């Protein structure tokens, strides 16, 4: 036996009977301890970082909204994390391709087109780096696996660069501004999302201050927005507002059904110092394919006509469906429980549901979802209900569509009433 053992250890082992076993236990204790410490760190760090609610003086909801509205922070840079979980069925055709790094699929020449990128942001979790310096210098970079998509606005020049396809997208002037960017892209920052939520407030909505929170290392008040109407599928909207300068730092939309937020967008780090001037300088790499914004737009519009990618539940700003016409649509009810009624299964019709979040579904999408719906009947006849975590849609057999961020009963009631 001792012939195999290193001398020092052999000495010990010869001492007593149960020494080896004890020493064995002690030694195996080391990896167990390492595992324990690692597990504890993983379990406890979020717990420590999360609810460390800072002590802040009381503030009324109104003051807080005013503070946020009055906020004149022009310069910031930071990292934003956006998670969207609409509870949509997994779509063929790589809707969520962005989540897997290489966004595959049949990207056309417009791979750097901001519109396509916005579609990707509408599902899964994404990390964005944002920087702003005044009203006309912004930069947003979407951090993908081994790729990056940058959108840079400097004065009247707008550049988008997609490293995955080495394509740059150029747009200039006010028209470009409307088409491409920071505005629509800005909708994804906490600022814009929060503003939308605040605008939706009214007699249908309760707005309160719900304690404090620590976001990206900064003290913040939590503004809690809740629909008063019963049928809404929206549980609560929480906006964390920086206690010092009123900048909204995090936006969370939770469904009434509970579970993970449908949309959560918040800074994971933020800095209110002036970003480096170089941040907003962009010149396309020599070797990049440069696409002119106007050309792409015409191409894109042509393609969009036969592409069934407008999904219910996506904020309209994301789907870019806003420009589509909205004939054949009625809005039933108001506030959170507004329901859009769309007549007929005619092809390619855009439609709007109500409140701050609008929904759109083309005839194609409806046809696709036909296989996924749940059969319901009422005095209106019969139809299918299609559910996501936020938006429900009722498609009657005669082709009328009722859609809104409301529960199934409200949809059926609306359909019954409409008959």
């Amino acid at each position, binding site marked *: 036996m001792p*012939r*195999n053992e*290193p001398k020092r250890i052999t000495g010990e082992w010869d001492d007593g009977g149960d020494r080896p076993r004890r020493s064995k236990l002690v030694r195996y204790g080391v990896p167990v301890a390492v595992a324990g410490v690692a597990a504890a760190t993983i379990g406890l760090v979020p717990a420590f970082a999360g609810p460390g609610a800072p002590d802040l003086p009381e503030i009324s909801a109104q003051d807080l909204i005013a503070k946020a509205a009055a906020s004149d922070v022009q310069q910031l840079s930071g990292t934003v994390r956006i998670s969207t979980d609409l509870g949509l069925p997994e779509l063929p055709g790589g809707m969520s391709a962005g989540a897997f790094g*290489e966004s595959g699929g049949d990207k056309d020449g417009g791979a750097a087109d901001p519109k396509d990128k916005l579609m990707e942001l509408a599902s899964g979790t994404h990390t964005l780096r944002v920087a702003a310096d005044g009203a006309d210098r912004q930069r947003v970079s979407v951090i993908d696996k081994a790729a990056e998509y940058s959108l840079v606005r400097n004065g009247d020049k707008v550049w988008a660069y997609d490293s995955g396809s080495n394509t740059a997208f150029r747009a200039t002037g006010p028209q470009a501004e409307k088409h491409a960017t920071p505005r629509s892209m800005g909708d994804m920052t906490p600022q814009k999302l929060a503003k939308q939520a605040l605008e939706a407030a009214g007699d249908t909505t309760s707005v309160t201050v719900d304690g404090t929170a620590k976001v990206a290392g900064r003290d913040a008040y939590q503004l809690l927005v809740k629909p008063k109407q019963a049928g809404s599928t929206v549980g609560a909207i929480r906006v964390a507002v920086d206690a010092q300068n009123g900048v909204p730092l995090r936006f969370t939309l939770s469904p009434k059904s509970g579970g993970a937020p449908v949309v959560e967008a918040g800074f994971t780090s933020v800095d209110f110092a002036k970003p480096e001037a170089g941040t907003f300088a*962009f010149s396309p790499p020599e070797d990049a394919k440069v696409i002119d914004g106007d050309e792409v737009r015409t191409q894109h519009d042509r393609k969009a006509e036969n592409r069934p990618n407008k999904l219910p539940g996506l904020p309209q700003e994301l789907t870019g469906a806003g420009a589509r016409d909205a004939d054949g649509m009625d809005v039933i009810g108001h506030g959170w429980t507004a329901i859009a009624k769309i007549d007929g299964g005619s092809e390619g019709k855009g439609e709007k549901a109500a409140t701050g979040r609008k929904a759109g579904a083309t005839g194609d999408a409806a046809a696709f979802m036909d296989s996924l719906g749940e059969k319901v009947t009422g005095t209106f006849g019969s139809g299918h209900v299609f559910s996501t975590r936020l938006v429900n849609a009722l498609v009657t057999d005669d082709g009328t569509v009722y859609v809104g961020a409301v529960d199934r009963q409200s949809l059926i009631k609306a359909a019954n009433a409409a008959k």
Partner: protein
Amino acid sequence: MSRADTRADTQADGELGVSGDRAPRPLWSLGLLRNELGTTFRRRRTLMLLAVLACVPVLVGIAVRVQTADGGGRGGPAFISLVTNNGLFLVFTSLAATLPVFLPMALAVVAGDAIAGEAGAGTLRYLLVAPAGRTRLLLVKYAAALAFSLAATLVVAASALIVGVLLFPLGEVTLLSGTAVPFTEGLLRALAVAGMVALSLTGVAALGLFVSTLTGSGIAAMATTVGLVLTAQILDALPQLAAVQPYLFPHYWLSFADLLRDPVYWDDIRSNLGLQAVYVLLFGSAAWARFTTRDITA
């Protein structure tokens, strides 16, 4: 048994260096380490592995070069669309292509064989006869595995650079953020990327070493390690397992690409290094516990 011979040499060295009362020298494991490195890198198998790894960039480079004629396109390993414009990107593409399978597999061969191979060949007991100590032997084995992973990474990077220079234009490097940096800075970043890739493999090396202490068969240890590496990556690709994925060792491997952003995005790189450190500590200590307490019968 030429290996046993070499061992005998070191042991002789060790004896000479150690003074009468056997107090450990400050550079106590250098002799053993030097010997272990020599044994590892002189082995024909190691050289074959490195040669195969060196071929990967050649294949990728030629494939891209041939394919460019009809326009290229998206898909394939990361950065592949950027290679035609700058040969330096072949380094990143090759590393991204070899990191998931080739590099861990080569490393698994070396790390998995470290203890189990000696046991299988019947040389382990002779190694332990020397006053080296098991802990020291394990550390030396691990160091050799790390040295191999660094060498393998550098071989891939160097081969890719040579192929890139030969087949593609060079010049200013466009980073992922669209910023152009001088070629020299690009080279520095490439070196940093290679370093990151080597560091990403430290976890696999520890895992392989642990598996290696469990069995007396080198082949079994290699196969198990490779199997674990592949399993971890399959699990990492299943969307349903999103909750556990951040704790799988390959999860942040591609974060080396974050070195190519402007400014560098550190979050995932930090996560990667932290995760690898946890795996090294966990499996390193497990290997130590197992190896220092088990009976050596071969």
